[in-house]
C-alpha cells in the first residue's frame, strides 16, 4: 500500500485500496480531513514523501514517526538559533517528552547532522541551559552535535570536493544521495568511525548500500567509500590521492608560471598567513579548504630557485601544528610531501620518525632516526630514539640512550626526559631528586630551564598522585594551569593530568567538565575522549561513555589499548560479558603497552575472570602482576588477589593479603569497602567497586 506524507503539513494521504483515490489524514489527531479544506494546507516545498506499508495502520505509524522526528529536529534547530528564556525551557520540556516516548535521540541527532553549523559551538549554550533545567536528553543531543561538528565538517568538505566522476554510477543527484545517507546512515556512528580507522569506517559506510535501490548505485556508494577511506586514512591504505595531486599541480605550476616579483619579506609574511589559514582549516575539519591552501602555498614557494627548502619548512611547520591538534592524517600528508621535495632534509626525517613513533611503528621510527643521525643531527636523533625505547617500556635503555647524548647534564630537555623515565620505572626517589634539581637550576635564573621547571613540577605532581597525595597533586596542577606562559600544547596535557587527579578524588563532575572542554578544543584528540568515556562510566552513564569508546579494528598504536580497556570495563558494568571479554581478555596479548600499563591490562582481564568465577585463570593472570609503584594500583592489585582467594575460600592467603593491604594508604574508599565486601562474600558489590577502581586507572 502506498501513502504520501508531509511532515511540515502534518498530513498523510492514504490511497483507497483498488483505486487511485486518496483520503487526507491529520497525523497529530489521526483524523480524516475534509478534502475541500485540504486546499488550505501549507507545507514545506521539499518534504513530500511516498511511503510504503502493508496496510493503512502501518503507513500511519511510519508517517507519524516521521512527523514527530521532523518536529523534534525543527524544535532543536530553533533552540540552537536561540529562543527567549521562558519559552526555551518550555520547548526543552516538550522535546524531552517527545524523546522519551516517540523519537529516538540518535535519530534526532543524525538528522541534525545534515550539514555543519555555521557556528560549531552554537549548540553549547542551549545544551547548558537544558541541563540546568534537568533536560538531560536534550542537553546530550546538543552537546553531541557540537562535539561532532569538526568531524562533520571534514566529511562534508571531502564530500563537496569529490569530482563529478565519482558520482557517475548514480542516477540520483548528489544532494539526494547525501540526504539518503543522512536519513539512513547513522551519521553519528559514521563520523565517529571516520575518526577511528579505515576498516571501521569502511564497514559503516558500506552498510549504506542497503539503502540504495539499484546495483549500480550500490557499487557507486562503495566506490565513494573507498575514496573517503583513501583520504581519511592515508597511512592505512595504498593510495595517497591528495599527495599525488599536490605533486602534479606543484610540478606543473613550477613549469608553467613565471616567478612573481615579490620580496623575501613579503613572501615570508604571506606564507605565515597561509600556514595559519591551513592550520585553522584543518582544526575545523575543512580538509578541502586546507588542501587548496596547501597546494597554493607549495606552488608559490617552489616558484623561485631554492624555494623547495622554504616549502619544506612550511610543510614541517604545518605538520607540527597538525600533530598538535591530533590530525595525524593531515600531518602525514604534509610530511610525505616534504620528503618528496627534499628527501634528505634532516628535520623532516625527525618529524616523520616522531609521527611513526606515535603510531607505534617503532622499528621504522628507529630506522628513520638512525638515518637522521647519519645525516648529522646526532643529539636530537639520539634523543628521539630514546623516546622510542621509553614508549616501548624499556625505561632503562631509554635512560641509557639519553645519558649517551654528549653533554646531557647541561641539556634541560634530556634531564627532564631522564627524570620522567625514572618516574615511569618506579624509581620515585631518584626521579623526584632529578626534578628537584631541574627546579633548582631554573631558580638560579638559567633561562633555558624555565620550561623544564614547569615540566618538573608536573612530574612531582604525578609522583604525589602515585603516592596517594592527591591534594598536593591537585594543588600543583591548578597552580601550573594558572600560569599564563605555559605553552598551549603542554597545557592540554596538564589539563588531562588534572582531570585524572580529579577522577581519583571522585570529583567526577569537575573532571568531566575539564575533559569536555579539551574535547571541544581538540575534537580529533581521541585520548581525551577515552578519558571522558571512563568518567561517564564512573558516573554510571555507561551507554554514553561507550560512545566515546567506539569499537575499533584500527592497527594497534600507542594508547590504543586504553580505548579497549575502558570499553571492556564499561561493557562489564553493563553485564555484556562476551563483548567485555573481547576487550579485556583477548586484548591482553595484543596491546602495545608496557610495564605498569601491562599490569593494568592484566587487572582488567583478571576482573573479567573473577566476574565469571573463572578462578584459576584469574589467579594466573594476577600472579603475573608485580608490586606496583602507584599506591592506588598496588592496593587494587592486592584487592583483586584477595578476591581470587576469597572465591576459593583460601583464608590463609586472604589474611596475608589483608595484612599487606592494611599497610597501604587508602586512596579509594570504595576499595576499602571491597575488602569488607569480600569478607562478607558479597562478590557482586566487590565487583562493582573493583570495576570503578579500574576505571580510575590507565590515564
Amino acid at each position, binding site marked *: 500500500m502506498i501513502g504520501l506524507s508531509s511532515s511540515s503539513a*502534518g498530513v498523510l494521504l492514504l490511497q483507497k485500496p483498488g483505486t487511485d483515490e*486518496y483520503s487526507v489524514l491529520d497525523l497529530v489527531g489521526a483524523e480524516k480531513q475534509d478534502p475541500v*479544506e485540504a486546499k488550505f*494546507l501549507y*507545507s514545506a516545498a521539499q518534504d*513530500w514523501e511516498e511511503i510504503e506499508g502493508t496496510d493503512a495502520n502501518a503507513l500511519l505509524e511510519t508517517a507519524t514517526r516521521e512527523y514527530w522526528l521532523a518536529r523534534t529536529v525543527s524544535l532543536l534547530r530553533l533552540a540552537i538559533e536561540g529562543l527567549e528564556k521562558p519559552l526555551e525551557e518550555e520547548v526543552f520540556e516538550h522535546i524531552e517528552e517527545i524523546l522519551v516516548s516517540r523519537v529516538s535521540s540518535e535519530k534526532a541527532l543524525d538528522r541534525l547532522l545534515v550539514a555543519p553549523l555555521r557556528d560549531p559551538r552554537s549548540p553549547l549554550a542551549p545544551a547548558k541551559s537544558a541541563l540546568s533545567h534537568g533536560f538531560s536528553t536534550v542537553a546530550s543531543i546538543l552537546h553531541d552535535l557540537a562535539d561532532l561538528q569538526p568531524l562533520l565538517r571534514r566529511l562534508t568538505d571531502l564530500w563537496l570536493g569529490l569530482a563529478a566522476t565519482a558520482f557517475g554510477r548514480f542516477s540520483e543527484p548528489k544532494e539526494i544521495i547525501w540526504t539518503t545517507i543522512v536519513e539512513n546512515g547513522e551519521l553519528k556512528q559514521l563520523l565517529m568511525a571516520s575518526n577511528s580507522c579505515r576498516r571501521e569506517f569502511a564497514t559503516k559506510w558500506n552498510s549504506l548500500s542497503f539503502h540504495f535501490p539499484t546495483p549500480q548505485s550500490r557499487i557507486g556508494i562503495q566506490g565513494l567509500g573507498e575514496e573517503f577511506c583513501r583520504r581519511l586514512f592515508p597511512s592505512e591504505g595504498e593510495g595517497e590521492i591528495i599527495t599525488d595531486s599536490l605533486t602534479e599541480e606543484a610540478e606543473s605550476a613550477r613549469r608553467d608560471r613565471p616567478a612573481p616579483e615579490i620580496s623575501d619579506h613579503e613572501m615570508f609574511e604571506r606564507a605565515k598567513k597561509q600556514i595559519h589559514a591551513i592550520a585553522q582549516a584543518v582544526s575545523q575539519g575543512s580538509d578541502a579548504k586546507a588542501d587548496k591552501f596547501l597546494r597554493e602555498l607549495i606552488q608559490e614557494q617552489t616558484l623561485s630557485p631554492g624555494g623547495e627548502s622554504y616549502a619544506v619548512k612550511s610543510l614541517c611547520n604545518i605538520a607540527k601544528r597538525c600533530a598538535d591538534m591530533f590530525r595525524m592524517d593531515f600531518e602525514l600528508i604534509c610530511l610525505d610531501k616534504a620528503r618528496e621535495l627534499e628527501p634528505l632534509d634532516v628535520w623532516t626525517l625527525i618529524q616523520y620518525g616522531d609521527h611513526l613513533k606515535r603510531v607505534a611503528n617503532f622499528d621504522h621510527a628507529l630506522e628513520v632516526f638512525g638515518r637522521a643521525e647519519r645525516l648529522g643531527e646526532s643529539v636530537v636523533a639520539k634523543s628521539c630514539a630514546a623516546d622510542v625505547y621509553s614508549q616501548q617500556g624499556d625505561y632503562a635503555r631509554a635512560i641509557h640512550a639519553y645519558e649517551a647524548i654528549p653533554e646531557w647534564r647541561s641539556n634541560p630537555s634530556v634531564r627532564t626526559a631522564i627524570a620522567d623515565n625514572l618516574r615511569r620505572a618506579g624509581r620515585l626517589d631518584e626521579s623526584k631528586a632529578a626534578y628537584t634539581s631541574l627546579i633548582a637550576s631554573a631558580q638560579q635564573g638559567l633561562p633555558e630551564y624555565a620550561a623544564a621547571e614547569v615540566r618538573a613540577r608536573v612530574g612531582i605532581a604525578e609522583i604525589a598522585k602515585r603516592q596517594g597525595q592527591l591534594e598536593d597533586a591537585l594543588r600543583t596542577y591548578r597552580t601550573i594551569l594558572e600560569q599564563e606562559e605555559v605553552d598551549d600544547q603542554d597545557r592540554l596535557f596538564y589539563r588531562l593530568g588534572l582531570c585524572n587527579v580529579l577522577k581519583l578524588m571522585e570529583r567526577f563532575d569537575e573532571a568531566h567538565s575539564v575533559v569536555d572542554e579539551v574535547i571541544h578544543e581538540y575534537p580529533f584528540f581521541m585520548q581525551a575522549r577515552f578519558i571522558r568515556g571512563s568518567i561517564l562510566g564512573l558516573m554510571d552513564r555507561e551507554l554514553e561513555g561507550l560512545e566515546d569508546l567506539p569499537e575499533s579494528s584500527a592497527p594497534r598504536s600507542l594508547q590504543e589499548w586504553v580505548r579497549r580497556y575502558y570499553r571492556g570495563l564499561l561493557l562489564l558494568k553493563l553485564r555484556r560479558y562476551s563483548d567485555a571479554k573481547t576487550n579485556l581478555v583477548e586484548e591482553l596479548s595484543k596491546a602495545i603497552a608496557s610495564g605498569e600499563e601491562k599490569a593494568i591490562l592484566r587487572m582488567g582481564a583478571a576482573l573479567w575472570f573473577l566476574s565469571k568465577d573463572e578462578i584459576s585463570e584469574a589467579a594466573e593472570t594476577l600472579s603475573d602482576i608485580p608490586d606496583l609503584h602507584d599506591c592506588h594500583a598496588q592496593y587494587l592489585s592486592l584487592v583483586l588477589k584477595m578476591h581470587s582467594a576469597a572465591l576459593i575460600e583460601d583464608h590463609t592467603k586472604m589474611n596475608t593479603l589483608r595484612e599487606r593491604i592494611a599497610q597501604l594508604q587508602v586512596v579509594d574508599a570504595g576499595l576499602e569497602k571491597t575488602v569488607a565486601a569480600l569478607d562478607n562474600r558479597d562478590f557482586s558489590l566487590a565487583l562493582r567497586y573493583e570495576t570503578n577502581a579500574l576505571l580510575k586507572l590507565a590515564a
Partner: protein
Amino acid sequence: MTLPTPSHQDTCPTCGASLCAAMRHCPTCRADAGAPNVRACRTDENLKVLTARFNDARTRASERGCSKEFSTLSDLISKESGVVVSMPAGVARGLLDSPNDLYVNYERLVGAKARKPADFDDDRRRCAVAGTLFGSYAKSIIYGALSLTGHGLPTYGSVHCRLRSVAIDKRTSFLETNSYRFIQDRGIVLGDDLPVGFKASWEHRHSLALAKIADRLSTGQTESDWQAIIIHSDGINRENDDFIEAHIYEGFDRNAIDSMVPSTGKKLSRDERLDQCIAIDKFTQLRRKAK
C-alpha cells in the same frame, strides 16, 4: 457578463506569440507575461464590469449619506490593505525554521499523482472550485484574505501572517468571496464561463471590496468596523466566514512576511500554543535582526 476561462489564449506582450492563459512564461521567447491569475483580472471585460459595479456602489453610498465613509475606506484599502495568510501554528513554526523553504499549497505538494481525494463528490467539489477558477495552475495558488490589519481568518489557523506587499503585489488577485461559496452560490460547474467583475488585481482591490460592502457602510464607522465587515468569522465554522479571498501565484518564504500575530480567543492544544509562541518569538527575532 462572462470572463475567458483559463483555457483561452493570450498574446505574449514581448514576441506576440500565442500564449495560453494558464501559462506565466511565453513558450516562444520565455518572457514573463505575468502571473496568469492577475492577467485574468486585467481583461477589458472584467475591468469594465468591475468599474461599473464600483460606480454603482458609490452612488448607492452617496444616496445613503455615506460618501465620506466610502471615499475614506477606498483610500484606506488602496494604501493600507494587504493579504493575510492564516496558517496552523506548526506550519508557521516550520516556516520560520527553514529560511530557504518556499511554502506551497497542498495541491502542488500532492502533485498530479494524488490529486484524487477519497470521495467522488468531495473530489468533484474541490476540482470544481480550483479547476474552474484556475485550471492547470490551481496547484500554484496560495489562498489568503484581504485585510486592513495583520489579522486574518482564525478558522484557517492560529497564526496570521500578513505578507509584504512588495513580495506579492504583482502576482496576487482577489475574488469577492470564498471561492467555494462563489462557485456553489452561482451553480457553476466545470467548463462553465465565469461571471466577470468579481475579480480584481492588486491595484483594483479597493474597487472590488467597495463593490461588495458599500451597502454595509454607515455614517460614523471607524477602521475597526470596516475590518469586521471585510473579514467576518465566528472563529469556529468556515462556512460562516465572509471575506475577500486573495489568490497568490506561487509560494512564499519567511522573508515575505511583514507581520505575524496570534489568533485571539481560540482554544489551542499545548503543542499548538507552543508552536504559536515559537513562531512569533522567532519572527520577532528576525525582524529585530533585519533592523
